[in-house]
């Protein structure tokens, strides 16, 4: 940051920030979402076949296939992506780090551990768990376990960091919790190896079984988390000036940070409990928004949620369509799509 050196070309486009980009991005995202929703309804286990779509509609299983399976899966993929995009934007703003993702504060590690524990308790090698505990854990189900685990992981991080006082401490605590819980999870899978397969499936992430129940739950969660986060978005804006500067503006930083961490935990926990640990969406979505249309966080949070939704839906449609009737893991496609685009942007920056 010396004197008057040439301005950093940190965007691929030179010149003024164009505020109209913000509106444009939202329009593009809405159009993409609409188009992908149609794709999501058409693409099924028969791939991209228009004739198959027509015969599906005419068939006697139409209500089941389209109404019970494809439509909720499509909407569900968008909601998972939306929750992860929102979580990623909060994480990046809160931790003031463009490489942050919503899994950083222990939510992913906690969810994975909880899933492994439930799977292990239900498996045959579960002598170390009492039968009543095992029965209760079985009732809990994987979805509930993942959600509780995610929240638990974040709570542990907060406890270790002694509240949301300092960003660096929060980040470090999150890393420690992640490593610890990961190690515990590995220990459990060593003792109860039957849990390993289920754990791997969870870690890879899947949109395959999203039904109307999941859709309702996630819609509710997003409807709560997004407006509240947007309401407090200016705090994230103030944080871009630096922690002390933000404090000097009269903000009750610890309390607001705690609230934002809670929203992050809620959004991530919901997404992770329904779809597993889908990689990359939470990291890439806010990054893409900031690169194309930098803006205050009130906009970035909403746009990140929308971008995440579109990204995951695109990945889901491709996962179903490319090798139909088989499926690719959706996490692989989010990495390819999101990572590929990011690489391209970075490349342009290097040349421009």
């Amino acid at each position, binding site marked *: 940051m010396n004197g008057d050196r040439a301005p950093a070309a940190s965007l691929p486009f030179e010149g003024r920030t164009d505020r109209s980009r913000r509106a444009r991005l939202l329009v593009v995202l809405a159009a993409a979402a609409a188009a992908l929703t149609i794709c999501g309804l058409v693409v099924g286990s028969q791939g991209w076949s228009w004739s198959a779509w027509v015969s599906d509609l005419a068939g006697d299983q139409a209500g089941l296939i389209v109404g019970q399976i494809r439509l909720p899966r499509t909407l569900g993929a968008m909601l998972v992506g939306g929750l992860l995009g929102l979580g990623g934007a909060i994480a990046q703003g809160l931790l003031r780090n463009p490489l942050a993702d919503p899994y950083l504060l222990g939510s992913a590690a906690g969810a994975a551990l909880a899933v492994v524990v439930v799977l292990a308790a*239900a498996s045959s090698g579960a002598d170390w768990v009492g039968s009543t505990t095992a029965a209760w854990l079985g009732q809990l189900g994987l979805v509930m376990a993942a959600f509780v685990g995610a929240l638990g992981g974040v709570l542990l991080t907060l406890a270790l960091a002694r509240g949301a006082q300092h960003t660096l401490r929060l980040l470090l605590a999150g890393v420690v919790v992640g490593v610890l819980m990961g190690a515990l999870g590995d220990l459990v899978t060593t003792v109860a190896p039957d849990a390993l397969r289920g754990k791997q499936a969870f870690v890879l992430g899947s949109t395959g079984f999203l039904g109307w129940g999941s859709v309702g739950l996630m819609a509710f969660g997003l409807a709560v988390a997004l407006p509240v986060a947007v309401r407090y978005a200016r705090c994230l804006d103030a944080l871009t000036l630096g922690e002390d500067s933000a404090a000097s503006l009269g903000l009750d930083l610890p309390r607001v940070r705690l609230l934002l961490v809670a929203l992050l935990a809620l959004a991530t926990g919901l997404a992770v409990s329904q779809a597993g640990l889908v990689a990359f969406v939470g990291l890439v979505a806010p990054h893409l928004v900031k690169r194309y249309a930098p803006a205050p966080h009130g906009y970035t949070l909403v746009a990140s949620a929308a971008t995440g939704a579109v990204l995951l839906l695109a990945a889901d449609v491709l996962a179903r369509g490319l090798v139909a009737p088989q*499926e690719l893991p959706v996490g692989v496609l989010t990495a390819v799509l999101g990572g590929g685009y990011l690489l391209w942007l970075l490349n342009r920056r290097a040349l421009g």
Partner: protein
Amino acid sequence: MTRRAWLACLCAALATGAAAQAEVVVRDDRGVEQRFDTPPRRIVSLLPSATESVCALGACARLVGVDRYSNHPAGVLSLPRLGGLDDAQVERIVALGPDLVLAAKSARVSDRLEALGLRLVMLESDSHADVRRSLQLLAKVLGVPQEAERVWARIQRQIDDAAARVPAELRGSRVYFEVSSSPHAAGASSFIGETLARLGLVNIAPSAMGPFPKLNPEFVVRSRPEIVIASQRELQSMAGRPGWQALLDATLRRCAFPTEHYDLLVRPGPRMGEAALALADCLVHPRAP
């Protein structure tokens, strides 16, 4: 006896002696040749199906250590358990002084063990033919080549029995065998698929998809399988999957196997015949729990 007769006897004796000490040369599933002067007497098995095969061939007493997943026959449970394929306890294995280690083709530990001077035979069993070949290989190494065919014949008999037991109205039904909840199915080209085919069932996942394809759940619903086979826990959670309640309601048979019996079904070894019988049992009784 004449001198010529003595010479003939001597030659014969020498020849027999030489034959008894003849080298056994086998090529394992990764293509490596192993030569055995004498049948191995101390065997470590890191593959549950290999453990079962060794015991089925009558050489159970020669096992000195098994992996943590080997649980059949009951006798092996008292043997030292040496970890899995990814975390095999190298020190303990070496300390047992085995003259043969059996492992899967993809084992990471193999390089280490071979570097330490142990002799490794790697087996991979994806299909019935593979199982037969593994049995023959093991029998040859163990010095009991005729046992392989005996065990194989028994397996075939059991499968034929099982096929005979399948109710006539179920023959030709579509079957879905779930291997994991992703969902991964056992396709027609897997060993499970071959068994199901022998029982007269039609797999919804044809051979073209490979042995264990990861399916779009919609495909399973659309295929309307009449028979669904899965572990007990998976079957319980299946009804919660979107659109699957209708699938389950329309089935003729639902076979839920608790974990211990599920092992039996998914292990490509000498108990494949028993697996077939277990499947047939389930098909005979409507709505098995």
